[in-house]
């Protein structure tokens, strides 16, 4: 078949030209990657976390390589929502792909304040609530584990913004599907997962934890099987679109998540070891669909779920 397949998908009010977004904290606000590809190729750009106040980030070692993965404990370094609006937003407004801001918080009020300011400022198309940042003391951590707190944050922010609202969940829980249901019930337009698994490494010669923060978030191909399983579970538990994240580095990885039922994917750590990871995944998806005679990527969303039409 020589028909150009359609890659477009919809997440809440967002129309994406393809299902590939960047993952928060792994792509800056894109400026670092302009030298490697045209950012307008992206389905959407999810930027760094934006907090109410500026944050310096953690001291000491912040990243450490692990087998097929990495640990990070950046500590949400960012100029704060006012700094973001003043200095960064004007530089990226011209982009022709949806911009999504990632918002962590310590308190419900903090989430609401940042979401409101970003909505007022304009130029941001969706808000991804980071309900699971394990790196800043107890910051955000309390919001990830109980469905009640997830619901509280989501519904408070829901009342404060008309932007598409994505709830990003922590994988460090017994039952992620229950959190997803709570987020959906509270008004989230979509669920994204997974954030990093909490991990750690020790420097044997110095006899102490390697990361300045002791623990950090594990990401990269190592966690892909866990992420895929959680996405598969959550897709079965909610009706809103799910965005799959975790270890995606190739078009084949992205296809696994789409077939598990994700409507879109985010690419995080792969940007670090391949600055062209996103455009290569987009091109690879297109090629795979074309080679399989599939005209629309939506035909394969959920294709590996029970009851889906089997492969021809």
């Amino acid at each position, binding site marked *: 078949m020589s028909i150009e397949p359609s890659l477009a998908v919809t997440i809440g009010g967002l129309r994406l030209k393809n299902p590939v977004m960047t993952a928060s*904290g*792994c*792509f*800056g606000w894109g*400026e*670092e*990657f302009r*030298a*490697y590809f045209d950012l307008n190729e992206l389905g959407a750009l999810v930027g760094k976390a934006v907090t109410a106040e500026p944050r*310096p*980030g953690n*001291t*000491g*070692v*912040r*990243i*450490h*390589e*692990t*087998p*097929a*993965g*990495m640990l*990070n404990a*950046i500590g949400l*370094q960012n100029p704060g929502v006012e700094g973001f609006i003043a200095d960064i937003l004007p530089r990226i407004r011209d982009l022709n792909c949806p911009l999504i801001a990632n918002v962590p918080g310590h308190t419900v009020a903090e989430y609401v304040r940042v979401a409101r300011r970003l909505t007022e400022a304009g130029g941001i198309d969706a808000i991804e609530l980071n309900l699971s940042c394990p790196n800043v003391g107890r910051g955000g951590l309390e919001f990830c584990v109980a469905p009640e707190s997830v619901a509280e944050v989501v519904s408070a922010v829901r009342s404060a913004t008309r932007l598409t609202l994505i709830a990003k969940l922590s994988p460090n829980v017994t039952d992620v599907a229950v959190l997803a249901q709570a987020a959906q019930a509270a008004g989230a337009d979509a669920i994204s997962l997974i954030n990093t698994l909490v991990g750690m490494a020790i*420097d044997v010669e*110095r006899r102490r934890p*390697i990361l*300045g923060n002791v623990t950090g978030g594990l990401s*990269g*191909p*190592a966690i892909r099987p866990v992420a895929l399983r959680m996405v598969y579970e959550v897709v079965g538990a909610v009706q809103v679109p799910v965005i799959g994240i975790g270890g995606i*580095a190739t078009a084949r990885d992205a296809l696994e998540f789409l077939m598990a039922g994700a409507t879109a994917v985010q690419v995080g*750590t792969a*940007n*670090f*070891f*391949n*600055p*062209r990871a996103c455009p290569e995944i987009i091109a690879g998806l297109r090629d795979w669909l074309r080679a399989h005679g599939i005209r629309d990527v939506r035909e394969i969303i959920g294709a590996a779920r029970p009851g889906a039409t089997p492969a021809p």
Partner: protein
Amino acid sequence: MHLVTSEVLDLREVAPDHWVTTFDAPEIAAAARPGQFVMVRAGPDWDPLLPRAFSIYHADIEAGCVEILYRVVGRGTRQLATLEPGRFATMWGPLGRPFDLPETERVILVAGGVGVPPVVFLAERLAQAPMRLLGLVGASSRKFLVGVEHLRRAGAEVRLATDDGSLGHHGLVTDLLAAALQEPGQATIYACGPQPMLVKTARTALAAGVSCQLALEAPMACGVGACLGCTVPRAGGSFARVCCEGPVFAAQEIDWEAWERGSI
């Protein structure tokens, strides 16, 4: 910035466990400036996962090739040292802020261990310039002294230091710096090497009021400014990314004490 699949043209062991790889990478060679680095991934699989940063040792614009010098210490460098000529690596660069070129009559180049590459590259680019080059090179033992011939060929006078006293001064390369600063003529210092050496060099330069630029290292994931993993404390208080605000910093830009404290 260029992202290329680069063929290995040459691989040679220049000292025990110290290797030089020559890559075919014309665009990077043409753009490279001393102090800059490249990110290299040597294999197609996910372990080791992250690229490794290597200072550019030589960039031959005409031949279109880039050389790096490294010591095999872990997984990334071990893998790199298996890439024989004809094999390929993925490489992107040149990255980072290069050395500012000197305006003084003397240039003191301080290199410790595998900190030699950027300093050699700088010396080569200064070979035709009207200034006196002094190279101070340190290593744990004489057999690990690398790049010395290159410095001499670039016209530098070279003084050596070894931890075990097997060649040159018995002690640290920074011991040689204090003496060199006593000699006449305004100097600019350029330094690259292990953290303690850099801290010592920076403090010596700051105390003497001599202009000093240092190429730093930090654990890196991306090399392009996106991960915020490679930060070092700025003198002001915030953090600077070594990969894009550095790797070269002026001595007064860094909070050396905080960096020492926070290091692994």
